[in-house]
């Protein structure tokens, strides 16, 4: 099992002191190597869920087990290290560092896991079709190319779980399919579990398993 969520609760404190519940998930599982599309509306808690699974945000209650480790019980530095080593993230707006070249952006992803491998970084960029653009900085790349660098970066540390947050939302129609295929093929090749969040049904339709967040996320109910 690659990902297991049990009785996960998350709420945000409002300025008036009351709490706004965001997540209320009794159970959710993702098999090793499985690819799941998660559909959800804006404000439905998609990003909070991904941040919680990545260990960026802490949950109020429950457990999130990734690759056999309950990250909700880990202290923050351990969660950071765990994220660097075992979780790959692709963001909607790529989040590349503009001062760094394509190669350096991938190397940066490796730096925090302590496993810097220059030849692997080049290989990954070559794999996503950017072998000739290693030394180009993000502003010199097209939107589609930037997202491909982001995909290469997410694969840099050979993660067990890939989290993709609306990865095709910022690219044009022509690139959408290419990016999606790239992510899915890369995960398949490397036996990485993929949880892809989208609000676009046409993106979700490419997946064998599609989940709707509102169906298993009941923030108002006690888990």
């Amino acid at each position, binding site marked *: 099992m690659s990902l297991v969520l049990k009785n996960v609760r998350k709420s945000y404190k409002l300025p008036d002191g009351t709490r706004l519940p965001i997540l209320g998930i009794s159970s959710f599982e993702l098999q090793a190597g499985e690819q799941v599309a998660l559909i959800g509306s804006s404000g439905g808690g998609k990003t909070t869920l991904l941040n919680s699974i990545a260990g960026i945000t802490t949950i109020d209650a429950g457990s999130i087990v990734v690759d056999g480790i309950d990250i909700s019980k880990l202290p923050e*530095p351990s969660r950071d290290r765990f994220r660097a080593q075992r979780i790959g993230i692709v963001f909607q707006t790529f*989040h590349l560092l503009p001062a760094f070249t394509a190669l350096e952006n991938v190397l*940066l992803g490796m730096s925090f896991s302590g496993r810097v491998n220059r030849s692997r970084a080049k290989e990954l960029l070559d794999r996503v079709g950017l072998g000739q653009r290693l030394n180009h900085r993000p502003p010199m790349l097209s939107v589609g190319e930037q997202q491909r660098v982001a995909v290469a970066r997410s694969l840099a540390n050979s993660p067990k779980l890939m989290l993709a947050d609306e990865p095709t939302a910022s690219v044009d129609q022509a690139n959408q399919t290419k990016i999606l295929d790239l992510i899915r093929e890369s995960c398949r090749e490397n036996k990485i579990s993929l949880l892809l969040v989208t609000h676009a049904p046409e993106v979700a339709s490419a997946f064998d398993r599609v989940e709707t967040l509102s169906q298993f996320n009941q923030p108002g109910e006690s888990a």
Partner: protein
Amino acid sequence: MNLFQIALKNMRQRGLASWLTMISVALGVSLMVAVLVLHSVLGKQFSQSGSGYSLIIGPEGSPTQLVLATVYRIENSTSNMPWRYYQKWATDRRVELAVPLSFGDSTEQGDFPVIGTTPQYFKLPYARTPEPQPYRVKGDFLKGSWDAVIGSEVARRNEWNADEDINKNGKLDVDEDLNGNGQLDAGSQFQLVHGGQKGEDAHVHKEKFTVKGILQATGTPNDRTVFVHIDGFFMLAGHENPLREAIHSEAQYFHEDEEMLLEKYKPELEAEAREAIAIKLNPNHAAHAVPDLSKEVSAILIVTKGDGLESANNSLSIYTDLGEENAAMAVSPVQVMDKIMRNLVGNIQLAFLCLTGLIVAVSGIGIFVSIYNSMNERRREIAIMRALGAQRRTVSLMILCETLLLCLGGGLLGLLLGHGLMFAAAPILEARSGLLIDPWTYSIWELVVLPIALVLATLSGLIPSITAYRTDVAETLAQ
């Protein structure tokens, strides 16, 4: 990629701001270096100059003025002492060596101070640290009455040459001294301005001195001084003291009855009267040997007998003896220079150091403002790094690395700039103040720049690094 590489990338990303920040640190540090180098040079000059002798004896007055005139040649003497007084000290049982000095004139070319002295002056070391440093001369020291030895700076600025017709044995050596034209190299000749060019009755003496030797650079005021033989100096028209005045002066210095002295020096007085008539009849009357009675000295350098304690005891004994007199005084040059250094120069330097300290502090605030202002745009980058697995401590150290690189870069640039500044300013300062500055002189205090840069980096990077530490990843990425 390590933290320094990431920090360097960030600095390059904000190239202009980074350079400006580094330059502001460099300017502060360069000023600090310049002050420290000046402090070091001044300290060296103050401590070394005049350290070759135990005491200076001069007419009663200001000890500081006597030292400034005798050692630094930046003041003139107000009165003189009889030659017989010098002879008294030269034969004193406590004195190893007494060197007479007469000064007040300057060169017509370049207005360099002129000192009339004996060749014995050059037997004194010009400095004592780390060991006694003897004078080295190209040519010869003073031998004839119209000989001159000039400092290296005088030779350079006035483009004067030494007479090379005398070899080390003091004999004519035609083979060595023939120049390209088959002529003997002649030493430069020059005339003196009576009382210095700024003196009230300044006029050029018609007699000429010939440069016989050029001193090797000493890094002391000797480099910009012209030494002439004291006999020639006395023979300059108007330099001999009228006999009646000289007798009055002797009476004062030796506590003798003036009437008795007038009787004693009757033959000299008659000779003076005959000389006056001869000059009246023939204005071109040749220069003559000056009687000792008419000779005056401005100061006497004293080296006391013995080493260590014995020498100190002898100095103290002379000092005490002269303390009871009204006409002359003895001063310890080292003590006076130390006083000048502490009270005047030291305070000015302290003020400069405080000022440069403030400049460096302002530079530090500049770094803080620059980094802190960039934190808004940088917060997103920090959040991305955190999302990729960077720990809070890592991003915090990354900011500190950046301020460290800026401060160290600025510090090193400032060190180079400071010495470059001294390199450019050295000839100007030398021309204006006579202060000889080696731009590559370094002060041990320059090493303080490194810890200062570290402290500055830490202080200026502290708040931005805390901001980085506290960055909320989820919230920042959602913006």
